[in-house]
């Protein structure tokens, strides 16, 4: 039910998981998956929630850009500058199309963290403009004492700390929605926490720890009912599910290139055109201006307004190849639906296996229907670092710690968890390998 409300309409009809042969073919495109680690063991990479591996097509696209087209984007009139600019803008159009958006509603940033900081700073800049009378400011971004910023207890630090800092800069008050014992947002909090004082609600689409898919449409509607903007952290959804950002009813969304088979160094901010137009710039300087005089400057329309300096063209071009690669994983635009089905199958197999182990406690929803591609758990009497170390000795790469969601771990009374996260290249055999590894953990520390 949650899926049908958060997925692109064309793609949530039952897509098939990849067959073994298809997964083998997918894996062959990722050079790193052929290497061994820790004394010759095959790499079992189960940390795609932190960063995905990159297919050869992405690496080739970056290399080709540097070998044939490299120039500073949006500067100069020579042929290479034209080609580099075209490649960069084609990447924008491709990424935008991947999330159902028009090209000019997508801003390239350094990473999703920068995207979220950009949005938080739009509020404090507008607030300062208004207080000082130094520039026009859109009411929706002007905070006054008593105004409230609302997040949730399951946020990654990247969707929490920027809002805490915004409150420190403006005097606004931070509030948050709680998390239930079974790992869902406590929607009973919505009526208690949201009020006409709420100016922005910022939540994750898929928890990077619990895997929970949040009811975005419902949250966005609740935010809009009280006149607040809705900001979505889509870092763990866009790489794993078909996502139509404009169709979700959100105002702004951040996601990262490196988690969706793309290079590091490129992140995305999507915003409804009218909202981006209303926002002050964040980083300023070259490229983002309209006119510059010593007394002051005016700025280019979005998205250029938010892209100061020479941008990360090669990374954007690599990301273009990444979204093409993901799309091509299924026929007729079903690529992401098949990725979702495949990863859901792996999550289901892992949850079933962990359910058999009385000494393992899984955090988050019990079933797969309301889960993305991550599973976090604790092993009785064994610290997550020790779990991860023993798995690493078997060549299995998982994430251990608080996964940049310390308040959420505190909520569940644990210092750290072990997290398995999937990508399209993971196999059923790798799920079994991690389960076997956990038995070894138990032997070492029992």
């Amino acid at each position, binding site marked *: 039910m949650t899926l049908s409300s958060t997925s692109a309409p064309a793609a949530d009809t039952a897509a098939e998981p990849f067959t073994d042969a298809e997964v083998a073919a997918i894996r062959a495109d990722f050079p790193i998956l052929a290497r061994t680690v820790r004394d010759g063991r095959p790499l079992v990479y189960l940390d795609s929630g932190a960063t995905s591996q990159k297919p050869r097509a992405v690496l080739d696209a970056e290399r080709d850009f540097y070998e044939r087209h490299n120039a500073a984007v949006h500067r100069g009139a020579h042929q290479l500058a034209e080609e580099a600019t075209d490649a960069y803008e084609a990447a924008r159009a491709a990424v935008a199309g991947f999330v159902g958006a028009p090209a000019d509603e997508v801003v390239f940033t350094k990473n999703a963290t920068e995207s979220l900081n950009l949005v938080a700073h739009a509020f404090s800049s507008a607030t300062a403009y208004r207080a000082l009378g130094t520039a026009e400011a859109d009411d929706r971004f002007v905070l006054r004492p008593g105004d409230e910023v609302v997040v949730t207890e399951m946020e990654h630090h990247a969707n929490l700390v920027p809002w805490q800092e915004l409150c420190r800069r403006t005097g606004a008050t931070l509030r948050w929605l709680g998390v239930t014992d079974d790992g869902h947002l406590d929607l009973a909090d919505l009526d208690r926490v949201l009020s006409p004082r709420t100016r922005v609600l910022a939540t994750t689409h898929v928890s990077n720890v619990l895997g929970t898919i949040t009811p975005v449409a419902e949250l966005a509607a609740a935010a809009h009912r009280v006149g607040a903007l809705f900001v979505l952290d889509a870092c763990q959804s866009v790489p794993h599910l078909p996502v139509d950002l404009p169709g979700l009813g959100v105002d702004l969304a951040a996601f990262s290139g490196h988690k969706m088979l793309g290079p590091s160094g490129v992140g995305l901010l999507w915003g409804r055109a009218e909202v981006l137009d209303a926002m002050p710039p964040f980083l300023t300087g070259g490229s983002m201006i309209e006119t510059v005089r010593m007394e002051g400057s005016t700025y280019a329309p979005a998205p250029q307004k938010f892209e100061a300096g020479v941008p990360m063209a090669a990374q954007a071009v690599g990301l273009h190849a990444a979204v093409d690669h993901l799309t091509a994983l299924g026929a007729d635009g079903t690529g992401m639906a098949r990725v979702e089905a495949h990863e859901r199958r792996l999550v289901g197999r892992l949850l079933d296996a962990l359910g058999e182990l009385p000494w393992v406690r899984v955090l988050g929803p019990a079933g797969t229907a309301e889960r993305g591609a991550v599973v976090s758990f604790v092993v009785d009497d*064994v*610290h*997550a*670092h*020790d779990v991860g*170390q*023993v798995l690493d*000795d078997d060549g299995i790469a998982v994430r*251990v*710690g*608080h996964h940049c969601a*310390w308040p959420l*771990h505190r909520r569940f009374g644990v*210092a*750290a968890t072990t997290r398995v996260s999937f990508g399209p290249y993971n196999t059923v055999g790798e799920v079994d390998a991690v389960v076997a590894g956990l038995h070894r953990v138990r032997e*070492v*520390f029992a």
Partner: protein
Amino acid sequence: MDLYAELILEHSKRPHGAGLRDPFDAEVHHVNPTCGDEVTLRLDLDGDTVRDVSYDALGCSISRASASVLHELVVGRSVADGLAVHTAMRAMLTSRGTDPGDEDVLGDGVALAGVSRYPARVKCALLSWMAFTDALGRASVPA
């Protein structure tokens, strides 16, 4: 794997000197921000002698074992000896596998030598030692 020597597991399961005790001259709280491990450590001095180190360590087997070894190595000895042990421990842990540690100085602590080959775990092993030197500083002991 050489990380989890039997001695390390033994110290982590049955840590020496665990728990917080009174009286104390300084109390410090250190965290490892990458994993959320925490240690609260109290130092009780008798002149130039470390009378007691008591601690509450929340963390992995390596960090708990290291705190246990710390207690074993520094309690009842001079502050100068404690600092010398710290120096030797730090040198071994940050050696990337090149310094096996001197058992005469580090006792059971040499079992932590394997940690130095796992850079991500060095902080786990150093956490309580950093807390110890911090506590010495706060207790205003001339180093």
